[in-house]
C-alpha cells in the first residue's frame, strides 16, 4: 500500500514538472537576464557600498594592535576631557534689576 502511494506521488510530480512547459521557459529567460546583467559593468552606488575594512595587525612586542596603512590610524582618546567641550550654559536673569555703576578704571 505504501509503495503504491509513493509511486503515484512520483508519477504526479513528473507529470507536473514535465507538463508545465511555461515554467521552464520563464526560468530559462530569467537565468539569461541574470547572466547578462552580471556581465555589464556596475555603476557605483555609494549608498549600497560596503564599509571599507582595514585589517589591523597585532604587535607581539608592544601588545597593541597596529594599522599598517598610514591614513587610518588608531587614536587613543582616554585622556581627552570631553566635559571641556560641553557648551557653557548661559546665566539667565529675570526682571530689570538696577545696574551698579562704578568709577572709571
Amino acid at each position: 500500500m505504501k509503495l503504491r502511494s509513493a509511486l503515484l506521488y512520483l508519477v504526479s510530480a513528473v507529470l507536473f514538472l514535465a507538463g508545465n512547459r511555461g515554467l521552464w521557459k520563464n526560468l530559462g529567460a530569467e537565468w539569461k537576464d541574470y547572466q547578462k546583467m552580471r556581465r555589464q559593468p556596475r555603476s557605483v552606488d555609494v549608498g549600497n557600498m560596503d564599509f571599507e575594512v582595514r585589517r589591523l595587525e597585532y604587535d607581539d612586542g608592544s601588545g597593541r594592535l597596529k594599522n599598517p596603512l598610514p591614513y587610518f590610524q588608531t587614536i587613543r582618546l582616554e585622556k581627552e576631557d570631553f566635559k571641556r567641550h560641553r557648551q557653557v550654559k548661559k546665566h539667565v536673569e529675570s526682571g530689570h534689576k538696577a545696574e551698579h555703576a562704578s568709577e572709571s578704571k
Partner: protein
Amino acid sequence: MPRKASDQYYAETRFLFHSHVKVKTPVRCGEALPDACFAILEHFDKHYNSYSEGSFFDRINRRAGSWMDADEHVLYMLREISRISAMTGGAYNITLMPLLRLWGFYSEDESDIPSAASLRRAVEIIRQSGIEIRGNQVRIAPGQEIITGSFIKAYAVDQVLLFLKSEGVTDALINAGGSTISALNDDLHPCWVVKIPHPDGEGFMKELPLKNASFSLSGRKEHFRLIAGKAYGHIINAATGWPSSNLQSAVIAGSAFLSDVLSTALFAVAPDDAGEVSRRLGEVYDFSYYLVGEHWQGEKTEFIHYKKTDNLKQII
C-alpha cells in the same frame, strides 16, 4: 497676541579691557547673541587697546615719531578726541602716559610728589604737538604715549550697540566695568535703571533711569595713589600735570564713546573751568553731566543738559 516686555535675559560677564564687561540680551533673541557681542568686544580689545601688544595704538606708541597706518576706527576716535582735548584747553589728553608714570600709577614702589621741573618737562612733552593725522596715517611725538583707557571699551560698546540694532534688538544692556553703561530700550521696556555710587562715601547716591543712551562715571574714590597721606586720583589734568582734585563726574550721551570721553575730560579740568569747558562742548555735542568738586558737602547733584540743536542749557 499682544507683545510683552522681556522679563528674562541672558546675562554674561567676561573680563575684557582690564575690567568686567556684562552683556544682557533678551532670552527670546537666542543664546548665540551674547557670544556675537563678545566677539566684537574681543576684537576691539585685541586690535585697538593700547595695552594689547600689536594693536593699532600699541604700534603707534612703539613707533612714536614715525607715521603709522591707521584704520577708520582709529582715525575717527583720534579726530574726536583731539577736538574734545582742544576744548578742554589740553586738560584732557590721551598721550599723558609719561605723567601717569611720573605719579607712580604704573609702579609698585612708594612714590613722592614729582618735582616741579619733572612735571614741567612731562607736560612739555605731552603738549609739544598734538596727535598728527595725515591721510590714513597717525603720528605722535617721541616721548608721548597714548593710553586708551578713557575711551576704547566705550567705543567697542558702541560697535556692539550698532550690531544689536542691525539685528533688530530693541532691549539690551551693556555694563562695561561699571564706568560705562549703555541701554537699548523700546516702548515695552522704556528704561533701565543705573545706581550711581556716592562720590565720597559708602552706598549709592542716586538711581538714574537710562533710556537709549549711555552713561559714564569718572572718579577717584577707587583709583588713587597715596602720597604723604594724601590721595591723588588717576585722572590727571594734562595742562598742569597735577591729578584732578574733583571727586566725581557723570555724563549721559547718545554714544558710549562720547559719554566716556566727556566724563574723563570734564573730570580732568579744574573746577573753576568746568562751566566754560562744558559750555564749549555743549555747542558741539548733546550731553548731560554733573561734576562734584573736592569741596562738595553732600549737596544734591543735578544733571546739566546741553543740547547743541538749540544750544539751550537746562537743568533736569
